[in-house]
């Protein structure tokens, strides 16, 4: 069930209505049933996978907690074995469904290259939506219990809800147990303001997804679908817009998820903090998909040694973490390169830090001013955007071919020719739709800028007169209804991050 489907627009109000009508003690059971229904609407068989993940991590966590209370060597050894076994089981399922085809293909190609004939077994399996998200959430919980940071949850059904809570089930935020678990015990009474805020956030999420992201998708999909028909400038435009598409798509989903949870009284992790206003690549990663970045930081980067070791090991840890992060996003070498590029940017930034500082001093460049930050922001955006090309391309080979094609067919003059309008007519978007998209991006960037400056939109809106507040609500609703890209002829409305 997609958030932007009629099915969800019927499902969600019913869930919320019943949730507030039933007694507190059964609320979590209702949410659990709703969450499983939500997940099974894609494919009922998927429920089995999430159930296996839930049972395995719940049981293992209880055993880990029990072993943790006994300091003897045998218990500690058993604890490590259970942890390893549970990790293997979960990552094994993830590997089979997500990476097997990729691994088999890569091994086959490698063997072919070495002149060895090998026949890998073929399985025709569909990637279950959200498998990477809930697997990581479950593993995060397991690590926390193993470290003794949180107690193991004894109530299986409540734990099952923690793993399957429908607003964040298929595309995050990847919640930490210490944030969400205790909320499953707290009473959530109907709070008018909270519900209103949640709905407003959902509205903003829908606006980002339907008005901006899906409109950009029309253009990006056309160019990336057959890049040989387009000039380098048009490919660059599509890549530039893809940066906003993926942001609006994913941040839109996150806002709908956080908003939906807020309507029911839950507070989920904020997943984005104006990422395109970051002035460094590491700053970008501190504000992009925060729940995943912190997961990798806490459970991969720091256990590897983090930055409290030599420079060489620090850079190795960074590159390794980003390569794994790339692989998490998709089973393809292009995703690995995308992750590695983001790691390399940071390594290069760190290596050249002192040199840049000396240059700035010698050239008398003021670093504490808006113009400097603007240049930093633009450079950061361009670096991040260049990496997105690898992310969006079908494969690493295609990405490299696109780069090659772009360099040799730059098409600079025709792109800016007065009667050409950037070639919009040839890239599947009407002029009106293109300018509406630009307007949407201006609104998005303005909102992000104000958020960066610390503006509290909810509070600011609450201070306004009722006619103004309602005007904002109606503009948002009708903006989505009229200018959104949706409808019966519209396909592929799925969220990009669902495939991860």
């Amino acid at each position, binding site marked *: 069930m997609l958030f932007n489907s*009629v099915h969800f627009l019927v499902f969600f109000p019913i869930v919320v209505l019943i949730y507030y009508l039933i007694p507190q003690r059964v609320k979590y059971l209702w949410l659990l049933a709703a969450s499983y229904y939500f997940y099974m609407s894609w494919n009922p068989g998927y429920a089995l996978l999430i159930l296996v993940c839930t049972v395995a991590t719940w049981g293992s966590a209880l055993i880990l907690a029990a072993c943790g209370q006994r300091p003897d060597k045998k218990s500690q050894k058993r604890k490590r074995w259970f942890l390893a076994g549970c990790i293997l089981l979960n990552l094994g399922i993830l590997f089979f469904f997500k990476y097997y085809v990729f691994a088999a293909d890569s091994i086959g190609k490698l063997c072919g290259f070495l002149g060895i004939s090998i026949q890998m077994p073929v399985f025709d399996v569909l990637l279950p939506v959200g498998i990477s998200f809930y697997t990581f959430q479950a593993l995060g919980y397991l690590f926390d219990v193993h470290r003794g940071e949180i107690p193991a949850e004894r109530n299986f059904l409540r734990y099952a809800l923690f793993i399957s809570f429908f607003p964040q089930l298929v595309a995050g935020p990847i919640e930490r147990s210490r944030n969400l678990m205790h909320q499953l015990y707290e009473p959530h009474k109907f709070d*008018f303001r909270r519900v209103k805020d949640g709905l407003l956030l959902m509205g903003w999420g829908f606006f980002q997804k339907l008005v901006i992201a899906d409109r950009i998708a029309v253009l990006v999909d056309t160019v990336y679908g057959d890049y040989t028909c387009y000039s380098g400038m048009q490919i660059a435009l599509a890549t530039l817009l893809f940066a906003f598409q993926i942001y609006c798509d994913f941040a839109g989903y996150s806002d709908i998820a956080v908003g939906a949870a807020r309507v029911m009284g839950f507070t989920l992790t904020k997943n984005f903090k104006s990422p395109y206003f970051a002035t460094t690549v590491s700053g970008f990663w501190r504000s992009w998909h925060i729940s995943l970045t912190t997961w990798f930081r806490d459970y991969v980067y720091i256990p590897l040694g983090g930055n409290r070791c030599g420079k060489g090991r620090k850079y190795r840890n960074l590159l390794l973490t980003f390569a794994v992060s790339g692989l998490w996003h998709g089973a393809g070498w292009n995703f690995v390169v995308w992750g590695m590029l983001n790691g390399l940017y940071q390594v290069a930034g760190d290596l050249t830090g002192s040199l840049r500082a000396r240059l700035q001093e010698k050239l008398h460049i003021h670093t504490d001013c808006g113009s400097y930050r603007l240049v930093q922001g633009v450079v950061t955006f361009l670096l991040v955007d260049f990496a997105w090309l690898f992310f969006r391309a079908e494969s690493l080979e295609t990405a490299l071919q696109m780069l090659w094609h772009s360099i040799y067919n730059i098409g600079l003059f025709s792109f800016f020719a007065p009667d050409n309008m950037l070639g919009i007519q040839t890239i599947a978007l*009407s002029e*009106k*739709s293109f300018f509406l998209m630009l307007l949407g991006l201006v609104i998005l960037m303005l909102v992000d800028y104000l958020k960066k400056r610390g503006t509290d939109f909810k509070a600011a809106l609450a201070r306004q007169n009722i006619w103004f507040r*309602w005007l904002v*609500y*109606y503009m948002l*609703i*009708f903006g989505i*209804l*009229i*200018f*959104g*890209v*949706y*409808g*019966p002829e519209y396909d592929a409305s799925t969220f990009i991050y669902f495939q991860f």
Partner: protein
Amino acid sequence: MIEERHLGKQKRVKLKRFMKGLFFCLLFLAGWKAAVLLLYPSNEIVRTWHGFYALEKGEAQVLVVGSSHAYATFDPSVIARTTGMSSYILASNSQNTVQAYFNVKEALHYQHPEAIILEAFSLDDNNNWRYGDTPDRNWKKEANIDGMRFGMTKLEAVMEQYESYNWSYALLPIARCHSNWEDIVTIGSNLEFYTEGIKEFSSFHPSKTSMSEDTVQQYAQSEYNPTEWVISEPNIRHFHKLAQLCRSEGVPFYVVMAPMYDVYIRSINYASCTDKIADLAESEGVYYLDCNRYYDEIGLTAQDFEDAFNGYHHLNESGAEKVTQFVMEMLYGEGKR
């Protein structure tokens, strides 16, 4: 005492919020309606419904339902001239008897006509519908449902005519027409219709052209097709429902087959068509008038035949005038059955 006052205040706050919420929803619905009205592709089917809803009570003494045969045949000005009764043609392109039944059912919420006429070609087994082979989504079907006001009849019509996975598609025209914000011409045309044109709208859509010589020749050369004519089960079922509805409402119900081009009639197994309709009408005790049997009485003589039709199925304006006059005389005049 203080507690009671506090409770009272809480109640007032809740009531105020409820009223605000209600008002918000009403304004939203009004905005939604306005958006659909302005963005919906301007077509005659939806406008026919709007024209119908704009009628004063009693302004549709004769209600005609059916396909294009109905709106190309029945001229309200001729009905008024011959019988003194006002009329409305609630017909739409390829409307079958299933849709005709729901149209009548909806119409009876607003008008109490003195006669209901079903143009018999709507019993043809056209497959623009759920029961046919063509896709479930068809603009003729959806436009007819889109024009209908939201209510139980509309819900029933959607459930009857669409597969369940298309119900939301059928009930939410905004999902289909919202991208028309780019089409200024449609918005302008709709605005003009709702501000000025609605009262002047005529449900009669006569053809102003005549059949060309080429078309005449084409029909003259066509071979005889003996294929048996079929009335689908849903059409039969809804014909019975329509007859029962009219009976229960005390409204006389007639079935009239508008004339088709003589050469065309002779090239098909027309007897299998008209006989089945006659049997069906007889089973409900409904009067059936087949105009194809009265060419001479109507005045569709060999000399002026081509002037009365614009194609093998449809009459033109002059043909419509003759046929309407004839039908009204048959139903209400001296030649009354």
